């Protein structure tokens, strides 16, 4: 679905090198030397090492990584606050890196705005004047400036603070001013560098929620830098993980958590509370062996159980609609009674979930019967897969990584 969306920003072979001897460093980089090696040979720091990615229109794109990994540098290459050493950045298909200084100013004034960790407000101006600053730089008249600034101020919930000076406001309020200032220019892209990192946790959560609400309403493309994985997961449609200027992985939170591309990413995501992110869709065993109601009798059911080594199977009708589960012990008795169908032993009062339900939400479904959980399409009731109780428990408790892999292997092999 996402791939059909128009691309807003495209980054192509982007390299950023700090220092004097850029040519040599670039050469070494192309030949595959690592950051440390280049630093010791040329005294150059590699900020960004050949980055390639696309950001879609209206996407909330998060850049994340540890301190010094190059997040801020990457973000600043998008509006050329830092001049890329080589490579291209396209915005709306336009090559930003080729633009003249004048054209670049225009891009900054109309297409992209930025929000900073330390706010970057002008202390000698009131909130209103700060918010209107971008329009002033653009040369708009006072009336337009104040009307638009007032709108932005209302949007971020700063009404009544227009005449105050920034120093009189709390950190959270100051960042609202920063956000309003960025919104006043009505840009298509918002660049945010650790915008909430300086705020205390409660305010931070509040601002995150409001930003999500805003983005839902205004449909801006947001590029958000953070070193906080929980924040990245909460906000990001997609996340890129950086290390030493290299993009280690790009994907949705769930893709990154379930399928870390490198050991670094794996170590990084270990701390995360996975049970709020991992969904039934990820955990389920797709296209499970099933019993077709009306076609498979108890004998057929037992044969399938034997061949898969499972003691419980889902039952579906011709349209693949999920009906319930049958257990091996019941099937044996049913066969002994020489019944033709599994109707008498079909358990219909069993847990079912839709694909986006998280592990946390599945925890209450775990019962003494150890019945698996059926994952179904909520509208058509078709069976999509099943999740074993074991995998939910392991995912929730996370006491054994190996067991998860084993379980997955097991499920894949069957």
């Amino acid at each position: 679905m996402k791939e059909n969306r128009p691309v807003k920003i495209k980054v192509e072979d982007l390299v950023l090198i700090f220092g004097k001897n850029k040519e040599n460093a670039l050469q070494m980089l192309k030949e595959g030397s690592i950051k440390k090696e280049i630093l010791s040979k040329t005294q150059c720091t590699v900020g960004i090492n050949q980055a390639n990615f696309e950001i879609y229109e209206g996407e909330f794109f998060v850049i994340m990584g540890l301190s010094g990994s190059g997040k801020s540098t990457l973000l600043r290459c998008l509006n050329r606050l830092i001049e890329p050493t080589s490579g291209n950045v396209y915005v709306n298909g336009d090559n930003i890196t080729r633009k003249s200084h004048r054209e670049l100013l225009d891009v900054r004034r109309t297409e992209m705005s930025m929000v900073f960790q330390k706010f970057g407000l002008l202390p000698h101006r009131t909130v209103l004047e700060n918010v209107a600053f971008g329009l002033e730089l653009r040369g708009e008249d006072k009336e337009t400036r104040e009307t638009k600034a007032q709108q932005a101020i209302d949007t971020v919930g700063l009404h009544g603070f227009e005449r105050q000076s920034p120093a009189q406001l709390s950190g959270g309020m100051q960042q609202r001013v920063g956000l309003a200032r960025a919104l006043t220019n009505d840009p298509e892209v918002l660049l945010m560098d650790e915008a909430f990192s300086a705020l205390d946790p409660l305010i931070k959560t509040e601002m995150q929620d409001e930003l999500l609400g805003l983005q839902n309403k205004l449909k801006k493309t947001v590029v958000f830098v953070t070193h906080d994985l929980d924040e990245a997961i909460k906000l990001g449609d997609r996340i890129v993980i950086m290390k030493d200027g290299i993009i280690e992985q790009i994907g949705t939170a769930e893709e990154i958590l379930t399928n870390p591309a490198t050991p670094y990413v794996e170590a990084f995501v270990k701390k995360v509370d996975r049970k709020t992110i991992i969904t039934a869709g990820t955990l389920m065993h797709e296209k499970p062996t099933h019993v077709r109601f009306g076609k498979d009798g108890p004998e057929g059911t037992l044969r399938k159980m034997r061949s898969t080594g499972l003691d419980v199977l889902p039952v579906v009708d011709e349209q693949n609609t999920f009906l319930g589960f049958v257990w091996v012990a019941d099937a044996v008795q049913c066969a002994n009674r020489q019944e033709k169908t599994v109707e008498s032993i079909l358990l219909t009062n069993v847990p079912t979930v839709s694909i986006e339900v998280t592990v946390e939400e599945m925890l209450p479904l775990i019962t003494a019967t150890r019945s698996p959980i059926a994952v179904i399409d909520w509208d058509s009731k078709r069976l999509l897969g099943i999740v074993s109780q074991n995998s939910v428990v392991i995912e929730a408790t996370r006491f054994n990584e190996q067991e998860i892999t084993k379980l997955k292997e097991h499920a894949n092999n069957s």
Partner: protein
Amino acid sequence: MEKTIDIGQYVAIAVKWLMANLRPLFDFIKTTGNAGIESIEWVLVSVPFYITIALFTAVAWKYAGKRIATFTLLGLALIYLMGFWEETMQTLALIISSTVIALIVAVPLGIWSAKSQTAQRIIRPLLDLMQTMPAFVYLIPAVLFFSIGKLPGAFATIIFAMPPAVRLTALGIQQVPGDVLEAARSLGATQKQILFKVELPLALKTLLTGVNQTILLSLSMVVIAGMIAAGGLGEKVLEGINNLDIGLGFESGLSVVILAIILDRITQAFGNKGLN
């Protein structure tokens, strides 16, 4: 000990060369400069003393508070009553013109040295030299270029009083936080917009401290410039010294101190208000 290295000789040669070849320029500077200083002086002297005192007191009241206003009123009245009003106004005229010229030169230099490493490397040692050289030494080229009078007095004063304004302008601009600059740039500010809408306003408080220092240094130099017939309180102080007239020396000295305190407190108050 015998003199083995004679730097002074080269400086003298350079000065002589300048005198020989740039005579018309110096004359032009002298005529226009003198005219400028004298017209300021004329205004200050011809405005009735009570109006000047009232104005100063009002400004002090508005910016520096009641105590300074009272001091201004009483101090200026005392100067008038001691009979030094005209000399004080002459000195003030010289201070105003020197300070204005010093700032016109110093602020751009300060901005330049804040922005360019090269400029800083050139300007720094020059400022050190200008500040540590004994003040009297400036009188020599001043007299050589412009002979004696008000303009050479102002010339020496400008050189002597300029360094703190350069330094503090540069400091003020360098102190502007990086994130504020980045924010302005991210919104599409040009270099010029950044200078006038961000850097100078944020540097204003520090810059005004520089103005204050420049004014006080000009005042001290203006007195020394009395030695080259720059007029004003300096000449009175000198007269007191030459005639060993303790009364005259004390009274004219006191007038200088009063003027210094008033100018200092008022410009300091401007500096503090600069932020709000």
